[in-house]
């Protein structure tokens, strides 16, 4: 793991990591590894990952009834550019 890798990973999350953040992480790298080691040291033989607090099965259906929705004007209020009923963005397909 190095800054280049971290920057590549951050790019996948669609942001350019601030230079200071990268330098700090480089300095902290050993500490981070030591922290991961603390996790790795715990015996988890035959232990299933805990993904959620409530592990009871949830399966329910509801009637297809119209629920509450937000009015279009309210949603579009936050858009920097609109075009009719749409949020306007730069062309996706070239």
């Amino acid at each position, binding site marked *: 793991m190095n800054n280049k890798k971290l920057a590549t990973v951050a790019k996948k999350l669609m942001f350019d990591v601030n230079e200071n953040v990268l330098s700090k992480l480089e300095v902290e790298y050993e500490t981070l590894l030591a922290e991961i080691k603390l*996790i790795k040291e715990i015996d988890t033989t035959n232990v299933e990952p805990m993904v959620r*607090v*409530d592990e009871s099965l949830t399966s329910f259906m509801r009637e297809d009834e119209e629920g509450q929705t937000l009015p279009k004007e*309210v949603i579009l209020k936050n858009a920097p550019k609109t075009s009719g009923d749409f949020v306007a963005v730069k062309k996706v397909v070239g």
Partner: protein
Amino acid sequence: MIKHKGDINTAIKNLSADKNNAVSHVYKDAKNTSGILSDATFTLKDLFATDNAPTQASSKILEGFEPGYNATVVQKLIEQGAAIVAKTHMDELALGGSGAYSAFGKINNPLDSTRMPGGSSSGAATTFDDSISVAIGSDTGDSVRLPASYTGIVGFKPSYGAVSRYGVFPFASSLDTVAWFAHNVSDVITTSQVLFARDDKDFTSKEVEVPKVELIKPKKVAVLNMHGVLSKSAAADFENLVTKLKADGIEVEEVTIEKSLLEAIGPVYDVVSFSEVSSNDANLTGISFGKRMEGNNWEETMINSRSKGLGPMVQRRFALGALYLLHENQEEVFIKAQKVRRVIVDAFAKIYENFDVLIYPTATIAPKWADGKAKGWYQSMLSHNNFEGTPSISIPFTKEDDMPIGLSIDAKIYEDKKMLSHALYFEKVLGGKDE
């Protein structure tokens, strides 16, 4: 009814005059209406959607964002007559734990401005004076309980699922819990009676009962073996408390969680929460959500918006989260952390099975900014309640160097009523004000 009534006019005055970067919006026309909270003043962490003010989560990427609806919690408060006087700032997007990370300015501890107030519910805690009855925040790893201890007030994290998270901007979905500050345990209970309910709009919510809660002395109390981390004075005060409990006929026993497991709490929290949040906040792109900073094409727009709109602490956590989720790291890091989460949960569960409550001093005193957060397991251990989903309250306990230290009281998941009934007892024993 709420015991600590607060005062709308004084609250508005104080909040409007706040110079501590703690307030994101003041409701100058706040009023009470009828209901259980008809004489109570409330503040809301700016993480809760409100239809009459922006919800920014103290981040530039949400600057000016208007959700256009009320979170279920907000709706319930309004329906029971609460006067909501302000929205409060936090560590950005509810990540962080010191008060340093709001994009709108650092928040200091009101008792000593050279010290942190704790976070992420920093503004909620620092503005919590006598003019306010209850301050709503959120607790994902300790974000209400830690600032409560650092500022000397009551902080309560309910059982996971007890309160609807509809309209609460998510951080780590397997850990996030709506939580609040109060002046006394009775007001915590009254607020629970208003806010606890299953909500069709939040599939993780459940019915957790808190009908009339009365003071009940616990029969068996577990005190956590702190492995020598407590300061001399905190250890002495804790010992005195134990003596008092025993003298009152309570069976008190020290319980031990292996140090290696306690040391894994912080790292597990980091891995699980950073990974979950990097996914949850992937929708803040500037395209259809989040403040847009234009680029030449959609890709550039997303990168610009996120690079400029997200603060460095958030960027750091997202980057690490993405690293932990990389295919080559997933099994060894992320899934391993989820397994260790279960090992931690199971270890504490054994304690809750055999005792009415588990108690320990919540934290050290608030660190000085110059010193930074202390190292070691004690600074991160409160997250164990978030792993478990168990209810936990921190009530004022003692002081050191004139700075407060809270007492944490934990119980089995969904036994909020039981825990709170015992918390009333501890509040009395510690001589806490009950109004």
